């Protein structure tokens, strides 16, 4: 094969000639860059599906936010709800009926009409397991509404709060409830209640939302293509009922590595990115070509304690653990200053947060005294579990765990740091294997119930079995708040429950952290949302 160098030379020449020939017969060039304004945002993982009812990951939800609308939506940058496909809504006094008046000027991307029948079709698709297009798992519907049609609890009562959905007239739709649900209107703004074209659902069946299929919503952008693992392209929907997008296309690039994503931003290959490495945030701030936008805190990082096991069943011990930790130092050094010290479940950006609640503070001497009083011996050894991978509420879990362990060592305890892979960690947490472990929460719907009742309303091992007298009082308050629909009536109940949690210390609250998003300096109009509900139709580039 090496004998005839002329063959190689001929091949090289042929290649060059072929290349030149191809260049000369190439199709017309695409539009010049100045005619096509793209906004390129990079995220760490690929989209799983473009069906908003059947996704749970932030990457897929980001795309769905551009493709679809709900009847209501979260105000940009806030957790309060405003009209969207519905112009107004009312609820009955007993909270068992919600009625929505719909816009009359909306069409889905496939050209079909949006109306009450479409809303009923979308809701029944999730609610009714016998619906022909009930082909997904619909995890969020089940999680937020308690189940599906026909599901009953041990007493034979329906578990799903939604009883039925009906069209009152062409542009009025009614949700009938089995029982009142305080956060219902917040839930209606979430991605899993976005409206999909019934025609597209019927045509595509169980394939709806897969890469080779075209989704159809009513959002500010239409689907163009999805090259798996690489990018998704969306284009402006000129007939959008709201603010028509300022850019022609949105491209969602998949760049898994945080450092590579930041390099791509610096190189100008993308315009924005999420989840930077903490070190890159100050680098971006110092770079005149880069800007940092912060999502208001919607996370709570805490340490769970198994409150019915010795010595953790003594409130003095739990309080001592909290007093021993310098949380402000952790926020300053390990969250890069992006956050605030937490002293309750609900973050300060949400209603239901009690601004008057004060943290125990950092007082190692008092911690030592309380431990001594409770009879905990010097050098008491226990396992302290932390997760192996970053979570939105714990950006560097190992470093934070080491810091906390060293604070506890300072007051005479001997914590042993332990970890295991994430799915096993969740498994063992659920099984009650851990005594003390790091965990946290990212809010779903901007409602305090979502930060509170999930952890407290049913004492279970994964939540530390908190079942004291104060726990029972808190549960009563939370269930009472859940059944009300007035925010004014609900808020004080959550604040009272927060006080009970504070007194009994079933959790050690660490931080509510802000999430940084990095952009090129000329990007304007991007409104960071505490819930990650960001709409790219307002984005533009400064001239």
């Amino acid at each position: 094969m090496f004998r005839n160098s002329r063959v190689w030379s001929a091949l090289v020449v042929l290649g060059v000639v072929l290349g030149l020939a191809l260049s000369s017969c190439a199709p017309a060039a695409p539009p010049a860059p100045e005619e096509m304004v793209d906004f390129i945002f990079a995220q760490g993982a690929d989209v799983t599906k473009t069906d908003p009812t059947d996704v749970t990951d932030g990457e897929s939800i980001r795309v769905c936010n551009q493709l679809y609308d709900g009847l209501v939506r979260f105000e940009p940058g806030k957790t309060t709800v405003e009209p969207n496909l519905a112009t107004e809504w009312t609820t009955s006094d007993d909270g068992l009926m919600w009625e929505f008046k719909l816009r009359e000027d909306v069409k889905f991307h496939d050209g079909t009409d949006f109306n009450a029948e479409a809303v009923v079709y979308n809701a029944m698709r999730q609610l009714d397991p016998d619906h022909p297009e009930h082909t997904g798992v619909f995890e969020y519907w089940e999680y937020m509404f308690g189940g599906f049609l026909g599901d009953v609890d041990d007493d034979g009562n329906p578990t799903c709060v939604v009883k039925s959905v009906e069209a009152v007239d062409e542009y009025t739709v009614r949700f009938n409830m089995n029982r009142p649900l305080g956060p219902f209107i917040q839930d209606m703004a979430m991605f899993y209640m976005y409206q999909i074209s019934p025609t597209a659902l019927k045509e595509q069946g169980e394939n709806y939302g897969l890469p080779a299929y075209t989704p159809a919503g009513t959002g500010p952008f239409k689907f163009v293509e999805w090259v798996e693992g690489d990018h998704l392209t969306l284009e402006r929907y000129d007939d959008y009922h709201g603010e028509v997008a300022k850019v022609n296309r949105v491209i969602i690039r998949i760049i898994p590595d945080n450092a590579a994503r930041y390099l791509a931003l610096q190189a100008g290959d993308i315009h924005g990115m999420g989840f930077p490495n903490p070190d890159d945030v100050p680098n971006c701030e110092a770079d005149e070509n880069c800007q940092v936008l912060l999502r208001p805190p919607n996370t709570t990082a805490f340490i769970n304690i198994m409150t019915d096991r010795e010595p953790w069943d003594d409130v003095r011990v739990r309080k001592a653990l909290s007093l021993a930790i310098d949380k402000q130092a952790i926020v300053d050094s390990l969250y890069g200053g992006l956050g605030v010290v937490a002293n309750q479940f609900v973050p300060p950006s949400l209603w239901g947060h009690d601004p008057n609640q004060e943290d125990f503070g950092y007082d190692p001497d008092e911690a030592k005294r309380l431990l001594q009083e409770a009879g905990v011996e010097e050098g008491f050894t226990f396992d302290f579990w932390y997760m192996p991978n970053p979570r939105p509420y714990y950006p560097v879990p190992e470093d934070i765990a080491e810091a906390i362990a060293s604070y506890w060592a300072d007051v005479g305890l001997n914590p042993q740091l332990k970890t295991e892979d994430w799915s096993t960690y969740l498994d063992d947490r659920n099984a009650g294997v851990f005594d003390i472990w790091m965990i946290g929460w990212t809010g779903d719907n901007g409602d305090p119930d979502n930060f509170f009742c999930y952890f407290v309303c049913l004492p279970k091992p994964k939540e530390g079995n908190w079942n004291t007298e104060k726990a029972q009082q808190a549960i009563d308050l939370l269930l009472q708040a859940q059944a009300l629909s007035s925010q004014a009536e609900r808020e004080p109940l959550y604040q009272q429950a927060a006080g009970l949690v504070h007194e009994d210390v079933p959790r050690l609250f660490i931080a509510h952290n802000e999430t940084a998003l990095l952009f090129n300096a000329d990007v304007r109009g991007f409104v960071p949302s505490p819930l990650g509900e960001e709409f790219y139709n307002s984005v533009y580039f400064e001239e």
Partner: protein
Amino acid sequence: MTSYIIRRLLSLIPTLFGVSIIVFLFLRMIPGDPALALAGEHATEENVERIREEFGLNKPLPEQYVTYMAKILRGDLGRSILSRRPITDEIRARFPATLELSVCALFVALVVGLPAGIISATKRNSVFDNTAMVGSLLGISMPIFWLGLMLNWFFAVRLGWLPSVTRLDSAIELQRITNLIIVDSILTGNAEALLNGIKHLILPAVALGTIPMAIIARMTRSAMLEVLEQDYIRTARAKGLVERVVTVRHALKNALLPVITILGLQVGVLLSGAVLTETIFAWPGIGRWLYLSILSRDYPIVQGMALFITSLFLIVNLLVDVSYALVDPRIRYE
């Protein structure tokens, strides 16, 4: 030769069967529940149970295995637990990216590594030899993650000569036929996409090709040194043949066997997914996908990919064995 190839291809069946059992059992022996990984922190017991039921994870292991094998025999690798999409579709979408990158990385490795090894051997202990061998030692020892980031930072960010990530600029439209950018650009006559695709390939191919390049250079040098000591080389020189002919026609051909063996192993390794390179350059191949699937206990993907990668390894090995006979006439397969 034909009967030998058929025999080897038939031997794939018991090997793949064995691999399927080992992977199936090992995956279930390690702790972690895929249903819980999918359902996440928010999951209720009902959520998790529904997912277990959907994917048959609540059935006895023998029943799960029989169901799995019955699907395999029908050519169905199953569906991903996380994305719920057919695994064959996922492989079809991602493997071309890995194939394209691997071929280019091997091209880089061969074009640099082979001549470097030959010249080092013929100019033993020269400045070139010492430089090439120190360079190859660095190439083997350098963490690919660091090298990739440095290449990216220097050529994409500082100099702005090459793109930093992915396979093609988003402004460029290309009709996908094979999902190999270079091939599709040529097939559709899209010169802009061809040039852009090549630019995107350079940095990841160099990063990924560095280790094979260094291995090939060192292996070629040592094999060449051994052959150049042989009597028949002295005879060839004594006959008055020019040094180039002695080196290329007489020495290199005989030194190639171990190099081909190493090359075969490297091809297998590259094709099975270069996790780090794909991660740094956001290359949408199978490497990182498989890594994430292992972490999330996506059993069907790991099982399907294990079979796919085993098949690739065995086929590449077979090609290597066949190529021995082509390079060395003394080797005959009956």
